[in-house]
């Protein structure tokens, strides 16, 4: 399991702007996203990205939040007390002692995606290890329609892990292997992960290769996500964040099913939540000082 989960975690890193001098800035605002697997902190100076970090979540939210914000401030001489406003988001958002406010990740993801990919972004899909969020937003990054599915493991990274485990395939290879088939098989018919597991075993008994089963499962998952997106209305332009964004086995099939390509940006899609939180912090800071 340890190795499987590795897929949802990314290399830890921190970054700060090499030329900008934060001491000259007037508004220092931070966003902290404490997720179940990774945590990010992002600092805006006068509304511009100054520094960020992307680290593993530790055993508790307050520590993870401290670690993340200290990571972003590393080698900058900045201290926690310099931050004028901090917004927490993510599943650990209510447990960040130094945050001025907690805001849901749905609102933050939309706002962050709007900054990263531009005001034309209308649909944001965030597929994580434990949930799947579909968001429709306006040109200012304000949420206009959303849904979050964290009840059912099907359609989350978790469902994929279960399948990888069953087939004893490292989860990072799934995307590639799922395309090594002579022809695309029909999707697995059971949505439920528990029943899909039995179905997969049955398919293997009837002679399907592991890769075929993977392909059938990936396309079932892509189909399921496209139905979820249908509920909130999917529009060009479309942006994908979260761990699944890095699994071509699902992303490419989903793009094909929707007939739309997702927008790629120069930013790491994992910082969308922290960026959105920092943007809200910046806005709230301006509101407060008016």
């Amino acid at each position, binding site marked *: 399991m340890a190795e499987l989960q590795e897929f949802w975690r990314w290399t830890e890193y921190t970054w700060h702007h090499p030329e900008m001098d934060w001491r000259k800035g007037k508004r220092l605002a931070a966003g902290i996203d404490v997720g179940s697997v990774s945590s990010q902190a992002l600092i805006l100076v006068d509304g511009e990205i100054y520094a960020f970090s992307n680290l593993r979540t530790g055993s508790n939210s307050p520590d993870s939040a401290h670690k993340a914000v200290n990571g972003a401030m590393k080698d900058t001489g900045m201290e926690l007390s310099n931050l004028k406003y901090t917004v927490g988001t993510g599943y650990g958002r209510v447990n960040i002692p130094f945050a001025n*406010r907690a805001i*849901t990740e749905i609102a933050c993801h939309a706002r962050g995606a709007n900054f990263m990919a531009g005001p034309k972004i209308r649909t944001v899909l965030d597929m994580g290890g434990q949930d799947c969020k579909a968001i429709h937003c306006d040109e200012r990054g304000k949420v206009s329609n959303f849904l979050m599915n964290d009840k*059912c493991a099907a359609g989350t990274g978790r469902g994929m892990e279960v399948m990888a485990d069953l087939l004893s395939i490292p989860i990072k290879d799934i995307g590639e292997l799922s395309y090594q088939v002579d022809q695309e098989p029909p999707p697995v018919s059971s*949505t439920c992960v528990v029943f899909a597991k039995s179905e997969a075993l049955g398919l293997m008994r009837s002679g399907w290769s592991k890769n075929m089963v993977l392909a059938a499962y990936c396309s079932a998952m892509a189909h399921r996500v496209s139905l979820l997106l249908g509920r909130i209305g999917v529009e060009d332009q479309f942006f994908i964040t979260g761990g699944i964004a890095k699994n071509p086995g699902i992303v490419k099939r989903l793009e094909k099913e929707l007939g739309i390509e997702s927008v790629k940006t120069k930013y790491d899609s994992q910082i969308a939540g922290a960026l959105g939180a920092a943007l809200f912090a910046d806005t*709230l800071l301006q509101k407060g000082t008016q």
Partner: protein
Amino acid sequence: MIANYGYKDGSGEFFIAIDTDKCNGCGDCVPVCPPRLLEMAADEYDPLSEKTVAAVREEERKKIKYTCAPCKPASGRGALPCVAACEPGAIAHSW
């Protein structure tokens, strides 16, 4: 904004959609719901708005199919209390 509370699982799609632009904050839907699924709260999804709107309580969001079951008999279903109580028509159920 349309907030879809609920989920989709193997057995179907179960969402209570609340249109926060239509919701006038009156709170009429809260007391009529027998299991008290709904509450009035600050709009979590629009942090810059000051409005209080109806929402499905967080701890109920993963089981609405079951909690709403008594309001939705297998046959002879009447109007849902929450939907009927909402004058501006802000509440809709997907099932």
